[in-house]
């Protein structure tokens, strides 16, 4: 099969999914005030400014259009079908997106590949500054949803939920958490009090999450003084981040931060005593560690506690968001909701599988090892294999394989 036939094959599978599962697809709240958008298989064109009357209307649309990706607006409009300027913005959900692309992950993204646009050289991981062969700086890159990346994204999501509940006072029932079907998680807050917040207010919420513009002096950091572990908001977060940092750090890391040799020695040699001191008034008066050193350490604590969200998504009050239980065109997995309290046990690469039956014979060009469901697959290179539908579709959507011709 060539590229076009492979695309048609994928679309056939999507048709199957939407015919059998449309009943599981629920529209978002305030349906008639939302804009819908569909990315079409044909020419990768985006059909925008669509309005939907009711759930049945939406399900019929999905069965007839069969898009590669389905989106709706986080915003509420008076007239969702008009052009942007005439829509009449009424408000928008508060939305967070956590994507492995924005996080440094322990796997080093070895599964990602880049290709130099100039000479065709390829490599693994994030693209280099310059092509090692021709020194040009333009690349195409391909990313994979790996379990380690997704675990890092989950850790950030857990942090986000913690800040939303403890600091922002939202209950787990007031937020919707979902795996996007590709490389990350979405968290939605539909609470009425946040709907009318403007871009500037949302930017402040982003800065709060990421710790941008945070000045420790407003959180109890003074000469010989600092916050305590159980304090509220960023105070406690700075303290807990500092505790974690001091617990896990080593001489090498401390020296890299530009701390003086004597300070490094004080921190390492007195580590137990310092950790013990949190029970009383904290480590801020430790002998041999001055306020300049604490500043550097606290910066590390802030980095450690900050939530790595996509800053653009949250500040955009007209954002289009993937609809839950629809398929992701890059993976053939579905976006799936998970309750905020169950996220620790959630296995995205298992629960998001949309196709549970059948097998498909493929020719795989190249694919790193990956996990889907309870099985591991690959690595593959120019090989014919027969795989369960979900794994096969995953490789096809990723452009890493084509369906084997039947003779």
């Amino acid at each position: 099969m060539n590229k076009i036939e492979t695309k048609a094959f994928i679309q056939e599978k999507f048709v199957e999914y939407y015919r059998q599962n449309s009943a599981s697809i629920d529209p978002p709240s305030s349906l008639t005030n939302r804009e819908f958008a569909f990315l079409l298989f044909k020419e990768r064109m985006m059909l925008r400014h669509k309005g939907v009357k009711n759930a049945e209307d939406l399900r019929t649309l999905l069965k007839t259009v069969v898009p590669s990706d389905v989106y709706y607006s986080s915003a509420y409009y008076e007239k969702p079908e008009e052009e942007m300027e005439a829509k009449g913005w009424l408000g928008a959900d508060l939305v967070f997106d956590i994507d492995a692309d924005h996080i440094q992950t322990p796997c080093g993204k070895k599964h990602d590949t880049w290709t130099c646009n100039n000479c065709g050289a390829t490599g693994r991981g994030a693209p280099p500054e310059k092509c090692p062969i021709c020194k040009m700086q333009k690349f195409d890159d391909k990313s994979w949803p790996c379990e380690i990346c997704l675990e890092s994204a989950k850790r950030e999501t857990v942090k986000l939920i913690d800040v939303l509940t403890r600091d922002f006072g939202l209950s787990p029932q007031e937020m919707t958490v979902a795996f996007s079907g590709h490389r990350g998680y979405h968290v939605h807050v539909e609470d009425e009090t946040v709907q009318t917040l403007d871009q500037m207010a949302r930017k402040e919420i982003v800065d709060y999450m990421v710790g941008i513009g945070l000045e420790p002096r407003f959180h109890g950091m003074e000469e010989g003084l600092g916050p305590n572990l159980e304090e509220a908001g960023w105070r406690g977060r700075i303290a807990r981040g500092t505790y974690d940092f001091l617990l896990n750090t080593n001489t090498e890391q401390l020296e890299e931060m530009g701390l003086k040799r004597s300070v490094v020695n004080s921190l390492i040699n007195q580590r137990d005593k310092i950790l013990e001191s949190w029970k009383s008034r904290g480590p801020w008066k430790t002998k041999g560690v001055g306020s300049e050193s604490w500043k550097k350490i606290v910066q590390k604590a802030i980095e450690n506690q900050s939530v790595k969200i996509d800053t653009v998504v949250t500040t955009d009050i007209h954002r289009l968001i993937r609809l839950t239980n629809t398929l992701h065109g890059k993976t053939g997995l579905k976006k799936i909701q998970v309750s905020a309290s169950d996220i620790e046990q959630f296995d995205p690469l298992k629960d998001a599988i949309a196709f549970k039956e059948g097998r498909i014979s493929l020719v795989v060009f190249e694919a790193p090892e990956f996990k889907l469901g309870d099985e591991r697959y690959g690595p593959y290179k120019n090989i014919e294999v027969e795989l369960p539908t979900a794994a096969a579709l995953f490789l096809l959507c990723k452009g890493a394989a084509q369906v084997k011709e039947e003779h």
Partner: protein
Amino acid sequence: MMISTTKDAFLKRRYALAEAKRAYNLLKQENKDKITQIANTFNWKIKPAKSETADFALHFTDFLRNTTGFHETKWKLVNRTMLNGEVLLTRDETARLLAEEVRGHIERKLDTKIGLELPPGIANRVELLQQLFWSKKGKMRLEEMPKEIVLDAFPPCIRQLYNTILSGRHISHVGRFALTTFLINSGMTVDNVVDLFRSLSDFNERMTRYQAEHIAGGRGSRTKYIPPKCDTLRTHGVCPGMDEICRRIRHPLAYYRRKLRIMQTATETPTAPRA
């Protein structure tokens, strides 16, 4: 009422600000109960704080609605203590936020149209007020941009984006928007902007031109876009760090104007030999 009939946005803002200042001076002398009562009339979710260092606990949405215009770093949400959705505030800070609410309230009220004709006596006064205002406002200098783009006067963020684009490397969406709006606003033509993006791997002439024209106000809504504020660029990771001039401004275009002025005075002044 007189101000609202002038239909002048600048005058309305000045008036609302003056009233807000007056309100602040009165409010900060009031006791906690009175402040709570006034806050309640604006539907604030506020209650006394259970804290030694703060007087009030205010819901973060009410806090955000009234602080995004403030520039002092102590008003950033990330620099406040927040628990259960409530931001801790002193009495004085609460008075300041209430004054801001008053300012917004007055501005909105001034925007409502007055249907009736003013009696001649009052209409004359409004006329006089407006004339007085225009004579003063005329003195406020409107700054012109130079005709040529002066690369040396670019702020660090724009310089970095510009260099990245020149070398054909990828920049974020926010980065592209900041660069394009900056270049268009400092006088670069749409053609030149499109050429600049030509070296990108995902360059698409039709799309780039469409977007550049849109930003320049030539399409669709006809609004001309300006670059995001420094604060916003910082949020989206576009700010590479501040230099001396950055500390004095809040907007990349303000940086450009200031730097141009500095460069101009540097070339105009002491080089001339004494007679």
